[in-house]
């Protein structure tokens, strides 16, 4: 998926989070560090997503004191500005100049698509910690590209089935921003919904970054659907959900969506306007399992806030890299061996058992979450159903 374009920042912030020298001396010998190059947004609207992924990753690395199989781990960060051009520049710099062992990122599908060729051609492992662009684990899949997040198809296809079968909804209006991720998500929803007797009354694709949804909302009211299904994220999600409530539609036509609609800091900005919205996603911070509870507790202790889905994806990215390095005894030179180690990674993630499909996309449960008032002014996503268990993206067109 993609998160909008914000090209305003012209400065590139370069941070190097070095390893404390103390740890270096612990290693006993000057082991060559394993380098991770993070290509994530750290400025403007989507700064919080990049920061959440980084925090989650650092939490996982701090559990092993930034040290795997005798090799220290060094994290390099650079601001992608959610721009395919900048993202590609950073990617090339990380590969050629810093000679990183792993690229981590990005948030946006169009940035991921731009980075793909550079990673693939240089045989540099790229672990996608958010971008859901379906092609990267389908026809454009690569032995060197892995994903710890989701494909844009994954949450939306089972949601279509669930709404038609379990909610008994047959006539919906759908809306998403007009770009690849928005279109991919709506296609996936339709695939599940239409096959189960659903009917799409209207499809609307406002521009990414739209500020006034009122004309679209009037169209929805005019069509009088039984429900509305949408994908929006970031600032757009806040605007849409609030304007939907302000227009009085919240009490008339129930709103459903992709989980990003009401995730992380977006939800706190939406407040009461979001209560009652049901969405599909592969995790919720309220999930009742020991791994998830530990993750939320540790994250809160370290960073002073509740982790978001993006934090979780960063956390799992960390675990995946750690486990693969352990399996190869810290060896990153034998690409084939490292690839197999990454493919074989299995662990208990906060979202449930984590393993990858043949095309390198997570096989995971998709949960239905409902935004509720949990008391004491807390608004949160609670899981009300499982839409699909161990769901695998079809990976069409990928022959790995």
């Amino acid at each position, binding site marked *: 998926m993609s998160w909008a374009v*914000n090209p*305003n*920042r*012209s400065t590139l912030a370069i941070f190097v989070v070095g390893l404390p020298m103390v740890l270096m001396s612990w290693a006993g010998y000057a082991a060559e560090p394993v380098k991770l190059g993070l290509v994530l947004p750290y*400025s*403007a*609207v989507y*700064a*919080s997503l990049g920061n959440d992924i980084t925090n989650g990753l650092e939490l996982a690395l701090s559990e092993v004191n930034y040290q795997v199989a005798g090799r220290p781990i060094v994290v390099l960060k650079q601001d992608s500005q959610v721009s395919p051009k900048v993202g590609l520049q950073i990617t090339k710099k990380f590969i050629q100049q810093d000679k990183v062992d792993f690229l981590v990122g990005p948030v946006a599908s169009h940035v991921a698509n731009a980075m793909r060729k550079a990673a693939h051609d240089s045989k540099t492992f790229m672990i996608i910690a958010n971008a859901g662009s379906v092609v990267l684990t389908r026809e454009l899949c690569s032995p060197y590209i892995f994903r710890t997040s989701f494909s844009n198809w994954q949450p939306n296809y089972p949601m279509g089935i669930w709404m038609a079968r*379990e*909610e*008994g*909804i*047959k006539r919906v209006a759908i809306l998403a921003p*007009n770009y690849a991720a928005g279109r991919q998500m709506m296609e996936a929803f339709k695939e599940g919904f239409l096959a189960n007797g659903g009917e799409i009354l209207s499809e*609307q*694709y*406002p*521009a990414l*970054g739209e*500020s*006034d949804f*009122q*004309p*679209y909302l*009037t*169209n929805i*009211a*005019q069509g*009088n659907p*039984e429900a509305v299904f949408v994908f929006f994220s*970031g*600032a757009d999600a*806040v*605007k849409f959900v*609030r*304007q939907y409530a*302000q*227009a*009085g*539609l919240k009490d*008339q*036509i*129930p709103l459903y969506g992709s989980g990003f609609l009401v995730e992380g*800091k*977006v939800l706190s*900005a*939406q*407040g009461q306007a979001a209560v009652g919205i049901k969405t599909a996603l592969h995790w919720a911070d309220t999930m009742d399992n020991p791994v998830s509870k530990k993750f939320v507790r540790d994250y809160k202790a370290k960073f002073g806030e509740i982790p978001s889905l993006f934090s979780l994806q960063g956390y799992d990215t960390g675990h995946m890299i750690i486990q693969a390095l352990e399996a190869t005894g810290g060896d990153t030179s034998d690409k084939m061996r490292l690839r197999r180690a990454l493919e074989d990674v299995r662990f208990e993630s906060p979202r449930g058992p984590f393993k990858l499909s043949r095309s390198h996309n997570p096989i995971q449960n998709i949960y239905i979450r409902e935004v509720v008032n949990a008391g004491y002014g807390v608004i949160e996503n609670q899981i*009300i*159903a499982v839409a699909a268990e161990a769901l695998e993206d079809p990976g069409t067109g990928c022959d790995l």
Partner: protein
Amino acid sequence: MPRRSPPNPLPRPRHLDTAGYILIQLLNGVQYGLLLFLLATGLTLVFGVMGIINLAHGSFFMIGAYLALTLTRLGMPFAVTIVLSLIAAVAIGIVTELVTLRHIYGRDHLDQVLLTFGLILIFNETVRLLWGADIQSLPMPEALSGSIPLFGRHRYPAYRLFVTAFGLLVGAGLWLLINRTRLGMIIRAGASRRETVGAMGININLVFTAVFGLGAGLAAVSGTVAAPILSLYPGMGEEIIIITFVVVVIGGLGSLRGALLGSLLIGVADTFGKAMLPELSSVMVYVMMVVVLLFKPRGLFSRG
């Protein structure tokens, strides 16, 4: 899983539906247009009087929204919030003019564009430092948070009706200020014959400072009023400022009447574009601009 009971709409006469629908979309367009008008007035005034292309106009829109956020959190009623953020933004505008713009009036437009672009970066970064990079939202004033039924099953947000009324009120106030006060007279004179005004013994620098402060205040007030509908983040001003430039160009640079007509045209065209020709909606306002400029190359109400 509890099944929701599907709403059972009564069939309504089709033509009533369509008429109501068009009226509501028209209202949407007028309301959006008046919001643009609030922004466009300041932009066109600053250009008309000072000859400055102020790219940072959107920054004052953002500042107005963030000031409203802080004032609301301090427990101020919305009316007080509007007045206080207006005053604060005028002050910020005046300081900005004195410290930066004052020194480049003699230079050409490119230097001004460069300076005001730099201001955008500074303002965005300042907002990020003071309020953080996270997306935030301003709660709606309680009394205006509901929606009222209009034309059958449609409901209209009460707050948007307030924005419409507010835009008209500010427009009327500005008209009085420009046409019925001494300050307005000086502004009008300064806009058309700057040197003559100076020769008459009027301190033109003071007029420039006042006008820039007024422009900043107008942008900030529109930010304050728009904030409960939008989401707040550093850089939020840039998205709306582009369309505001289109409005000002269509209306004729420097013309208040042009700004009003341009705003309404763009508001309505954009709304109907989105509602009825969604595939073309993103080019709708630019098509409008091209058409207007073909027949009126200097805008609808260009001066001289």
